[in-house]
């Protein structure tokens, strides 16, 4: 029986993310919330592993009380259970404090054989929580998974989508996998699961439930703090060169030399 955990995040629907001018964290009030789109692919992959090999899929999210809606929506796709991690003390958490909180919850669940996350959330875009969570749980992780295959000895071979092509890595379980959109085509929700999800009791775990102190979580447990937020400067006009590699390398060398001289 595989114990599968899928971590999801509720994110603002709008592309125009607003920031709190004081804390520099995301402002969520007054904006429609959705499940982070990459997390739906993580959920689908979790459900596919369950469909093929049996097991349970448990959803986990950390967020304000309204994040419960994201869990109910995700339950409508057929996950077995959901837990909401919510506490005033969790507010303002960076990726580390978030990962630590999730890790403690997974321990409280009794551990997991396979954890799925989206490759990153579309609001913060850090792509760090998954890998940090695996690190805290001392299990291997594979990021940017675009395909999973099982070997006969129960190991998992994961194709990772890279900038130019892919590579394949093999891992034993337990492991954490973050997925890209190429991995699957998420199913539609099921009416029976939605009916069940509506009535499902979703436990809410806070600081005390996870044996954590206020210093370890939220803003105070965060190693990083956002000091400034600004739009990235516009890039220059890109050039695309074609030709033989030797020729291109020589051309690039000349260009770099010219530019460094110009700066002197």
């Amino acid at each position, binding site marked *: 029986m595989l114990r599968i955990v899928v971590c999801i995040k509720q994110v603002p629907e709008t592309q125009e993310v607003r920031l709190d001018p004081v804390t520099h964290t995301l402002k969520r009030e007054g904006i429609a919330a959705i499940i982070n789109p990459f997390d739906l692919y993580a959920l689908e992959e979790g459900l596919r592993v369950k469909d093929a090999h049996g097991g349970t899929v448990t959803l986990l999210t950390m967020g304000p009380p309204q994040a419960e809606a994201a869990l109910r929506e995700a339950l409508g796709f057929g996950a077995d259970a959901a837990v909401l991690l919510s506490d005033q003390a969790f507010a303002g958490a960076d990726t580390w404090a978030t990962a630590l909180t999730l890790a403690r919850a997974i321990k409280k669940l009794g551990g997991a054989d396979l954890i799925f996350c989206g490759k990153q959330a579309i609001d913060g875009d850090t792509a760090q929580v998954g890998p940090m969570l695996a690190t805290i749980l001392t299990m291997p992780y594979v990021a940017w998974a675009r395909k999973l295959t099982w070997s006969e000895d129960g190991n998992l071979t994961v194709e990772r989508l890279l900038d130019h092509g892919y590579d394949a890595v093999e891992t034993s379980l337990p492991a954490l996998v973050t997925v890209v959109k190429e991995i699957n085509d998420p*199913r*539609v*929700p*099921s*009416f*029976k699961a*939605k*009916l069940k999800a*509506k009535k499902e009791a979703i436990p809410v775990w806070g600081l005390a439930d996870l044996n954590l102190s206020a210093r370890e979580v939220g803003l105070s447990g965060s190693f990083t703090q956002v000091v400034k937020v600004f739009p990235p400067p516009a890039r220059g006009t890109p050039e695309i060169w074609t030709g033989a590699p030797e020729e291109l390398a020589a051309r690039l060398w000349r260009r770099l030399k010219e530019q460094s001289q110009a700066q002197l």
Partner: protein
Amino acid sequence: MDYLLTEEQQMLQDLARQIAHERIKPIRAQLDEEEIFPWDVLADLAQADLCGTVIPEAYGGLELGCLENCLVLEALAEGCVGVATTYAASFLGAYPLLLYGTDAQKHRYLPPLARGEALAAFALTEPQAGSDAGAIQATAVKDGDFYVLNGAKQWITNAGEAEFYTVIALTDRSKGVRGASALMVEKNDPGISFGKKEKKMGIRASVTREVILEDCRIPADRLLGKPGLGFIITMKTLDLARPGAGALAVGLAQSAMDEAAAFAKERHQFGAPIFSFQAVQHLLANMATQIEAARALVYAVARHIDSKPKDYSKQGAMAKLFATDMAMQVTVDAVQVMGGHGYMREYPVEKMMRDAKILQIFEGTNQIMRNIIGLALNKEYSKKK
């Protein structure tokens, strides 16, 4: 408008809408253009549990009523009436079983339908028997523990793709209409074959083929109800299905309205959006009013049917007649609002206009609907004397 739907009904409607907008709309032009049967969408509908809406829970369905069926059909028709017709036609094939099947018959056919693993089809029409359904010539002759079927059924939706066919055939030729019976024929039975895929004006994602029965030998326990009930089963089946045809019309018309209104906001002529012109507003106002009236009638009739009245032929015919005539007019007007753009296949309303026409024809033409309503009125007013 608030139709006082329950939370469950709204959830069902939202789910069907989600499928229509996310899974059907993006591919509907391709399905239409290339005449592709929508197996992928049917798989989504199965995953969503929507293949079992009206099938009892004992057979794996959701055991919902006529109103819920209409809500789903309306939502799916907002995506594509070709796809929605495919889905609806399977229920048309299943209604005779739901109404007259034995427990054993239901156990054999309903669970795979509810799971979306199989489709059903209803085979009544013949080359010489369209509106005059009583003129069917197909026969089912008893031979020991078997029936042997011969004849040809024309323009059968889902034919060739469906696993199960409810065939109306004469078990007693001498009795005419009273000698008709309903029998379940399976795709793999010996002696059943299918004609070529018909080329249609609209609803091109759905398939229409001839069902040919040549010494098609089936076990006698495939008979639904009793011998001679075929015509009654047919009428009851169509009565039950007709609000659904009305719901398809409402969804289609709403979708055409939405396209036309959005276009009218964007399109500028004489220095202003065409929406600001009274000529266009009056067209849109008529469309919106007619759609709302049809929706209200379809829901009211569906609720009436769900209250289990003894007879609802008249109301079912009214819902089908009014809503499908409305959809024809609204889709024609949607093209008019959009002008030359509306006529181009690049925009979806020309397809909607082509799709609308069949709604006035199938499941009983709208002329037959008026006959049914007239007949019922005649009876009602005779009693009142």
